[in-house]
């Protein structure tokens, strides 16, 4: 039992990294990025290519990729997604959904449908045992990164001027504009940061398991569930939501491999019925 709980929490750590970017983008500009999962997979494939092309270690490869991801996210928001924002959710949904289809088919064309993974060397298989429980180093490291990312993101929001501008445009766009903020730029910065998390999540996912071009939508749903369970606008909430999701799926998988993900979805729907605002809501939709 302890082992199931531990594995579930470690899985949840990875889900938290899937979800933090989504949480950030929704929190700052109420944007639902339906291509979130596909961007994660794209990040994973780019990490594989970067490592293959440069011969860097996976960790260093990711460090190269993350600043580039910031630029990509910044540009995407600045030049495309900003033009879809508004009271009507349809434009942003259609545009990100279109991006999702483009990314999936682009990956299929470039990398084929075969699952690939990022060879992390000895660390991928390393583990240690405490009494009769075995813990992998890589999942533990991922969990640590997720914890750190949540903490940094929350600190960024609470204590920095960038975070203050995020909160300002989130609370009242017009008032923020009157105070001299440029929402278009602030939004682009938020998406840039979200994309750094996406690249990180993609790299770690590719190290943990194999990735394939069609994997994106499922990751989007996990990310989304974690955000809703945790409550909108709260990064610690997102982390808790992700951990709960990982835990539920792990328990489900042990009961019957066919029902693991189903159990996760069901837990999400139950939370939706009992507490639709999520566990720790901060932002109102």
């Amino acid at each position, binding site marked *: 039992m302890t082992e199931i709980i531990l594995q579930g929490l470690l899985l949840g750590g990875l889900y938290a990294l899937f979800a933090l970017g989504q949480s950030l983008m929704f929190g700052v500009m109420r944007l639902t990025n*339906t291509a979130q999962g596909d961007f994660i997979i794209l990040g994973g494939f780019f990490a594989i290519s970067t490592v293959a092309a440069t011969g860097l270690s996976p960790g260093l490869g990711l460090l190269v990729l993350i600043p580039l991801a910031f630029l990509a996210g910044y540009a995407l928001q600045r030049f*495309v997604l900003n033009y879809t924002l508004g009271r009507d*959710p*349809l434009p942003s949904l259609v*545009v990100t959904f279109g991006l*999702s*289809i*483009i990314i999936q088919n682009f990956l299929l064309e470039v990398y084929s449908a075969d699952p690939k993974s990022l060879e992390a060397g000895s660390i991928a298989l390393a583990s240690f045992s405490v009494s009769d429980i075995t813990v992998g180093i890589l999942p533990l490291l991922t969990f640590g990164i997720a914890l750190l990312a949540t903490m940094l993101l929350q600190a960024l929001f609470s204590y920095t001027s960038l975070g203050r501008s995020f909160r300002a445009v989130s609370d009242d766009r017009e008032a923020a504009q009157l105070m001299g903020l440029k929402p278009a730029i602030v939004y682009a910065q938020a998406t840039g940061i979200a994309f750094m998390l996406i690249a990180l999540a993609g790299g770690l996912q590719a190290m943990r398991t194999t990735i394939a071009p069609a994997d994106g939508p499922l990751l989007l749903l996990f990310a989304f569930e974690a955000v*809703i369970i945790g409550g909108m606008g709260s990064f610690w909430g997102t982390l808790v939501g992700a951990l709960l999701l990982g835990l539920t799926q792990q328990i489900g998988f042990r009961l019957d491999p066919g029902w693991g993900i189903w159990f996760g979805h069901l837990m999400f729907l139950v939370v939706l019925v009992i507490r639709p605002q999520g566990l720790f809501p901060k932002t109102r*939709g």
Partner: protein
Amino acid sequence: MQAYDVIRSNHFSKALPWLTIVVLIPAISLPMWGESSWMREVVEIACYFLFAMMWNLLAGYGGMVSIGQQAFFGFGGYTMLIVGNEMGVNPFLAIPLAAIVTTLIAWPVSLLAFRLQGGYFAIGSWVIAEVFRLSFANLHWVGGGSGTSLTALRDIEKATRESTTYWIALACIVIAIAGIYLFLRSKRGLALLAIRDNENAAASQGIDVQRLKLAVYLIAAGGTGLAGALYFVSNLRISPDAAFSVNWTAFAIFMVVIGGLGRIEGPIIGALLFWFLNKFFSDYGTWYLIGLGLIAILVTLFFRDGLWGAIHRRYGLSLFPTHRFLKPRN
């Protein structure tokens, strides 16, 4: 005091009855002179069209953008199959039955989906569709993950089966267009348009917003279930991955956005265009899909009201007028 006339038609829409006759006579008689591959093609495009029409009703009029309508499509298909195979009901009769059952199941589903708004409603619906898919994939008596075949049509001769399916598809198209057109021109339809334009203002005029939204959700679910039942009567084989594929919604979004959201003409134009593109470009596989995605993005960014929207703005034409114009009486 100035008196006004309420104008509800234009020169173009007055041709509608004639146009209907011109289209319907060859369409109804097609099984007598056409090839069976044409009928199959019409049935397939009819299913895409019905799906898109219902998505348009939900998103374009009801303001509920969903990425999970494939839940009802697949559910309609499976219901038809179960009623036909297991209960011995004639599958053709099972098509409307499936639509009714899908409408019924949509009610508890709405209780979940309506807890979310905007973009989160869209993805929440997708989660619900995945629950449907995984549930049917784990039901071993309908073939589990690999699916099963519609055996109930075995004893019906192929020609009869194909022409009956075709006529049902045709009837579904006509009923869907006529039904939505008449609904939108009715008092409730006006209320729905008011909600789309401004929910709070509509509520302040005494419109029961939640009730009307629920009604639209249920109708859209039933219509989508109908499309699913029809598709799998024609296809004879169902699997969870095919029935609950998100591509159904993706193609519907494409058709509606290109054709013109919130207009009856939109999905019609969109479905014709989709059929054309599919016929000539689907061999390009991934590039074809990348093209569709790109078109949807560009149209959303630069031509937000789609093809028919552009025509309507430029020439003031509409084939199915749902607007009301006031004209001063001389």
